[in-house]
């Protein structure tokens, strides 16, 4: 096993790639009682068009299949549901789907190995029937409806639709009630057989483990699988231009909420280093101690520090700045002006260094909770990154590099504004 140690956070990761192609990452944590395991496949909501290994023809599946499959994988041939079984063992089990991966997980203090039997069994043994697939449509339909009432989700997905013309990141992870109505068991099996091969998956454990011992336990429970070829994923060509500069939707909210998005290019360059620089820049532009934030706060235009993210995968990259404001346009303008000013006059060194210190603390803090650590290693693996890289690359981010990134990424014509605003006359509309 390969071992990588990080002296700053005093943690280690053990990495092993098994013969069948499965990657296993083990992060031992001696101080904690909690144990966490997560098994992810590189199959998310954007993977709806592909050529399966050994085939020549393109398969297109309805939107929302990865998420639907996540719900159904718990179903067992003997009529039981593995979520119930795991709960009954006494562990806390769950699953989730993102744009680029699907993950199954549980955490516990005791009964880890008892649960591991069930866990590794259900992820490796799908059982879909006409009835159990139909039944799930009502449940997922209500999940979609729940998000329909969620202003934060609506404003985000609208921002994606502004940023992207074709990339499926613009589509809701769960699909729509219409798209999921077309899902059947054959589609689920096809997707499972294509994407749930060990070579497309990564298993991460974090907690009080001996690396060698837990690796053996995992190997024992793996079903033999033939090596298969590569999956060819087909994504639509995405132009550099944004789809729409602006989008507004009306919902029953007290104050408008907004997402400002900045579209970036996916590139072969060092994305981790770029990511750190962007985090520093965002904090300098609109973070709590920035002049802009203080001004907007005093004017009552922001109530708290916006949420700032750089989201990227192998297929897309963008910045989001989200918050609530009575006048999102003014916040947008303030950000645009500050970016211009920083471009013109450069960054102030004292400010840059201070924010870098803050970011250092933020990265160290990510190594506290076993669940957060494992999720982070999995999500980063999907992008081809080892999570320690952020601490390793930290020193390489200089002020002049950040200034370069500012000029390259923070472009006015790549910036969009998505708003959900109150609609007092919503009743009359009906």
């Amino acid at each position: 096993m390969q071992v990588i140690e990080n002296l700053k956070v005093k943690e280690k990761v053990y990495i092993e790639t098994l013969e069948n192609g499965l990657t296993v990452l083990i992060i031992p944590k001696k101080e904690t009682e909690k144990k966490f395991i997560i098994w992810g496949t590189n199959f998310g909501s954007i993977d709806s068009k592909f050529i399966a290994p050994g085939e020549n023809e393109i398969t297109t599946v309805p939107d929302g299949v990865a998420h639907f499959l996540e719900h159904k994988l718990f179903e067992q041939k003997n009529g039981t549901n593995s979520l119930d079984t795991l709960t009954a063992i006494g562990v806390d089990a769950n699953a989730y789907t993102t744009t680029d991966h699907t993950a199954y997980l549980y955490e516990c203090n005791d009964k880890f190995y008892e649960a591991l039997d069930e866990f590794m069994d259900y992820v490796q043994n799908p059982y879909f029937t006409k009835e159990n697939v139909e039944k799930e449509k009502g449940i997922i339909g209500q999940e979609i409806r729940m998000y329909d009432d969620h202003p934060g989700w609506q404003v985000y997905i609208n921002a994606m639709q502004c940023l992207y013309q074709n990339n499926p990141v613009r589509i809701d992870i769960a699909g729509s009630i219409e798209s999921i109505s077309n899902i059947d068991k054959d589609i689920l099996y096809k997707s499972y057989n294509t994407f749930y091969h060990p070579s497309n998956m990564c298993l991460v454990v974090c907690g009080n483990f001996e690396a060698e011992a837990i690796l053996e336990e995992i190997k024992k429970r793996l079903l033999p699988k033939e090596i298969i070829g590569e999956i060819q994923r087909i994504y639509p060509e995405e132009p550099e231009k944004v789809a729409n500069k602006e989008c507004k939707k009306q919902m029953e909210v007290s104050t408008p909420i907004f997402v400002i998005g900045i579209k970036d290019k996916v590139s072969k360059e060092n994305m981790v280093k770029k990511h750190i620089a962007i985090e520093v820049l965002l904090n300098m532009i609109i973070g709590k101690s920035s002049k802009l934030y203080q001004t907007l706060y005093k004017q009552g235009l922001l109530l708290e520090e916006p949420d700032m993210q750089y989201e990227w995968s192998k297929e897309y990259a963008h910045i989001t700045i989200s918050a609530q404001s009575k006048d999102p346009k003014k916040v947008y303008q303030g950000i645009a002006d500050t970016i211009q000013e920083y471009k013109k006059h450069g960054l102030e060194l004292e400010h840059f260094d201070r924010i870098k210190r803050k970011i250092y603390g933020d990265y160290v803090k990510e190594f506290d909770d076993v669940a957060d650590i494992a999720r982070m290693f999995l999500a980063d693996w999907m992008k081809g990154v080892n999570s320690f890289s952020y601490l390793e690359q930290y020193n390489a981010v200089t002020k002049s590099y950040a200034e370069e990134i500012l000029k390259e990424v923070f472009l006015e014509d790549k910036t969009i504004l998505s708003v959900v605003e109150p609609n007092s006359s919503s009743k009359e509309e009906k």
Partner: protein
Amino acid sequence: MKEKKIQIKEGITLHYIPTNKFKNNMLAVFLTTPLDRKTVTWNSLLTAVLRRGTKTMPSQEKISENLEKMYGASFDCGVEKTGDNQVLKFYMESLNNEFLPEKENLLQESIDILLEVVWNPYLENGAFSREYVEGEKHTIKQLIKGKIDDKAKYAVERTTELMYPNKPYGLYKFGYLEDLESITPENLYTHYQKLLQECKIDIFASGDIDKEELVSMLMQNEQIQKLQDRKPNFICHADASELEIPKTPNKVTESMNVSQGKLILGMYVDSKKPDDKYVALLYNAILGGNANSKLFQNVREKASLAYTASSSYIRPKNIIFIKCGIEIENEAKTLDIIEKQLQDIKKGEFSEEEIEICKKQIISAIKGIPEGQDTEIIYYYGQEIAGENVSLEEYIQKVNAVTKQDIIALAQMINVHTVYFLKD
């Protein structure tokens, strides 16, 4: 007990919670005061004003700059409702010195900043700054109005109001719009001084911290030295106000622009025996606490009516909320299924196995308490306010001791108080 309590002054307690699981040290100051229609808005505004500046760091900008220099230490504050109390919470989190790239002592600095925010605010002419008070009125106004933004939470909030009209627990923790106008920098400052003299004060320190060092840092702090003994004014859970019981459950339907209906049932546990709280915990788990529960299995898995179908037990008030998100037209159908589940538990139609599953789940959650710094602080605070001293081990024993007969017996004493439906 892992937690060590140290009385600093009468009514002021330091809770020392040693742990080596985290990269951070977490400090907190909780000011506890009875929830009261007359002061609820004042306290919520006060908390917001205090975070704006201190004597040595007169603006938020200055506070933030200092925190950034301290490797992203974080300060946060807000108000919460715990039983019939309003709690003003102030948190400070910073890296343990062991994980700093250079040798520094962030603990000392963190204590100083936290205590200064609470006890040494920025003042102008012997009162709070007018700019800060007016600015934060605006913030609080938005928070109060923002109650409607999360429809699922809003539905629970409305149910609580309907169950406790004119009672402390029915109050909204951020307060009321109409109260804001009469608050001035001067009268808010007078209120602040009175609050500080009367409230219950709890200080928490969680992390890899040396006890002697911590105590000496606190005792030498000038804010602490200024504090006076007090007979703290707060409501112990046992003395909390009662729910008025309707002859038949209240039924309230309200409209909003929603695409999914939110169905909430507020229920009460009509028992005052302290150990019945552990029974109620199990009752709730069987009803809607996990994936094996009656609500999840019957409303969601069998009938496909919902994605969320669960229940939660509010221990300080001894009440349970059932929560379902459903198609609006399915209200009656869902209520029938829920009613059947409540009757089934009353009749004892649940297995020993279901009880075992729920016990395991609850115990696992109890064992998880020390895995989070805030969860551990909240646990010990809950004990403090309840006037109890139950260790996690005893807590597990109490849960394990609950029998099927206990649950059936308690189920007879659990009734629906209010059925609330939020639809379009």
